Each structure stands twice: as structure tokens, then as C-alpha cells.
């Protein structure tokens, strides 16, 4: 009986992680149960270490265990561009594509119109401070094309425009592999607006 309790609580903890869900949690828990004890110990220890040492990067808010994150500390990154993202997860997803060599800025909150959360949720100060020395030429907004992401992008744009820096937003539109005929109106409009010369 006790064994079942431990197993259930592991599933419960895993299922509470974003994007996992009950079924995946069961699968993961089952895999963890079959690890040899030393590997299980290392997994547990790395979770504890990560949680204890991770903090926001002093410059960009990315998750790091140093004062500055790997990206900010890398002298080969293009320091004239900053890409604004909603969370470190999005940053890592974009890094994974290996198409962007500039810097990032992770926002500490998003506007959420449906929950009546307005501009008070986002402090634009730290981002504006990074633009003060004039080295940054372009700020690229990479927020999701959701209500929250779009409201946040509109707000950040409004804050940055007076500073004279070029503000762009990544293109949105029809996902790869989708038939245009089935695209909804908003996605089509976004795709047309975001067109580029070929």
C-alpha cells in the first residue's frame, strides 16, 4: 500500500508541471521507477541543484545559474538586436532554431485583457535601460499571437517608439503544412501583412 502512495505522489507532482498532463506523468513516473538507483539519485539531485541555483539573468531575465546568462556573456552575439519574449521557454525554442544571433529580453509579465490585467503587469524600465546607450538598433517582438501576446506587443511598442529604436514583430500567419483554404481570417490577414519580397 505504501508503495502505491509514493508512486501516486510522483505522478501527481509530475502532472502539475506545465504541458505534462496525467497520462504523460504516468509514463514518466513509470520510466523513473525503472531507473537504476544511481541515475535516479542524479536526476533528483539535478532537480534540487537547478532549483537552488537558477535565477534571472541580471541583464535579460533569462534563467541562469550565473550573474549573466550564457547568451549575454557570449561576446560573439550581435549586440545591436534584442528579441523580446514572454518567457525563458520561448527563448530556448528560438535558440534551438539557430537562426538568431542577437540578444534577448525576457518579460516579467504579460498583459491579460480577459483577466483585466493591463500595462501595470509589465515593467518596461529594464528593457528601456538597455536601449539607453544607443548600441541596440532593433528590438524584435516575439510574443505569441494570442490576446495576451498581442496586447503585450502593442504595449511594449508604445513604450519603445519614442526612443527612436526600430521595433519589429516576428511574422505570423499560416502554419507550415496547412492548406490556405482552411486558414482563418485573422491568420490570413497576419500572413498577408507579414509578406516579404521574393
Amino acid at each position: 500500500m505504501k508503495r502505491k502512495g509514493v508512486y501516486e505522489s510522483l505522478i501527481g507532482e509530475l502532472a502539475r508541471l506545465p504541458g505534462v498532463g496525467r497520462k504523460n506523468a504516468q509514463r514518466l513516473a513509470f520510466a523513473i521507477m525503472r531507473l537504476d538507483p544511481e541515475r535516479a539519485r542524479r536526476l533528483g539531485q539535478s532537480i534540487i541543484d537547478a532549483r537552488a541555483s537558477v535565477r534571472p539573468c541580471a541583464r535579460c531575465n533569462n534563467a541562469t545559474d550565473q550573474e549573466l546568462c550564457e547568451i549575454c556573456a557570449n561576446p560573439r552575439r550581435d549586440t545591436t538586436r534584442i528579441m523580446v519574449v514572454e518567457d525563458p521557454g520561448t527563448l530556448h525554442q528560438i535558440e534551438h532554431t539557430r537562426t538568431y544571433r542577437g540578444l534577448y529580453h525576457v518579460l516579467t509579465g504579460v498583459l491579460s485583457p480577459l483577466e483585466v490585467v493591463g500595462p501595470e503587469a509589465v515593467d518596461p524600465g529594464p528593457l528601456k535601460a538597455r536601449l539607453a546607450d544607443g548600441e541596440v538598433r532593433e528590438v524584435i517582438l516575439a510574443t505569441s499571437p494570442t490576446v495576451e501576446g498581442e496586447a503585450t506587443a502593442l504595449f511594449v511598442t508604445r513604450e519603445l517608439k519614442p526612443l527612436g529604436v526600430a521595433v519589429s514583430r516576428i511574422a505570423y500567419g499560416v502554419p507550415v503544412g496547412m492548406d490556405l483554404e482552411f486558414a482563418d481570417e485573422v491568420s490570413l490577414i497576419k500572413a498577408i501583412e507579414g509578406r516579404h519580397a521574393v
Partner: protein
Amino acid sequence: MTWIDTAAINVGQRHLSGADRLVTLITPAHGRMRAVARGVCLPRGPLGGALEPFGVCRVVLAPGRGDGLYRVEAADRVRDLPALRADLPSMLGAGLVCAWAGALGREGDGRVLYRLLHHTLVGLARPADAVAPVVARFLWRLTLVAGVAPELGCCVACRTPGDLTGFRMLPGGMVCALCRADGDLAMPPRGHAALCAAALEDGAWRSLAPDSARRLAALAQGYLRRHFGADLPRRAP
């Protein structure tokens, strides 16, 4: 419970695990409905982006687990309002309107609420209309839809029509100078006129000044809270 095929406006969503969301829909025949939309955040999932807030969609709902909870089987966009997503004040106004529609969606006639909400969102997407008057008008019309419209033509306490100088939250309406008590708000003639413009059925709300409209919207929200104890799905900033 059988399947329901209906028009709907998504007024609220909460992330569940993975790409699933719990959506709050305002529908013409059933008022507020809650439904689980599986895979709604996935670009190539069966629901795609069809359930994005602020637009009108057509949904097929099946009975879900739990009392009064449905499952979205299919969704299609019927009418998008892209202008709402291109302007921050319009977007915040639309968010507030949707949040209140969701909070009070079980009160009154669903069909009327749906029409009012639809009409309001279209108004917010129209650049000619300023945001604050549209929102103020929505909130005061919502008091009517929800069955708690304030008495504006005479004193709510003694029923005399003259010398109305205050506003009483409960039971709701103007009060005359004689009946006015502690706790009633001062309501000068100009405020009374603006309140009538927002609440009554004609085009007068269009002429409301933005400042006055914002005050009326704040008053309406306080009023709705007093009457329903309802509050918005507010997320801490």
C-alpha cells in the same frame, strides 16, 4: 445532455495541461457555457485558432465530465474583428467587456446578452467610436440584461420624480434630496444626464466625453459587484 451546435463568443480561457484550455462561451440560446477545448493552442490541432477570444465562432459542444461542463468537438470562425487586436485601448476594453459578460453570463436572457456583447465588440472594433463610451454603455446595459437596472426617472425610495441629487447602489437608482442618506453617492444633474445617456436605449451614449464615460464605467462595475457579489477573473499583475 445532447450535442449543441451554436454560435458563440469566447470570453475567457484558462490553461489546462498541455495545449488544452477551459473556455467560457457566451451563446445566444444558452447564455454562458463552459467547455474544455482540447489541443486549442496547437497550430494544426483540430480546433486550430478558431476559438480565439473576441470573434464569433460556431461550435459543436458535447456533454463533458462534470456538471454543466461541455467539450468542444468542432469550432469554426464566423466573424473576426482584427481591428480589436490592433489597438491597445480597444483590446483592453474588449477584455473588460468579455470578463463581465463571463462573470454575469448566467443572469438574465442569454440571447439578449449575446446580442449586446456582439454589438459591443463590433463597436469597439470601429475606429470612429471611442472606447470608453462603448464600454460604459455596455456595462449599464448589462445591468438591465442582468435584471438590476437602476431607477433613473424618479427617486428609488419615494418615487417622486423631482430634485434627484444622489445615487443609491442598493436597491439601485437615483434618490431625491429628501431621501438622500449617508452612503449614497452625490449625483449632480450633469452626472445624472450622462448616466441616462449610457443606460437608456438611444444613441446619446456616443456623445459621452471619455472622462465621464470612464467614471460611469467604474460606477457600473461597483454597482454590479454590489448586486451580484460577483468579481472578475482578475489575475494578479
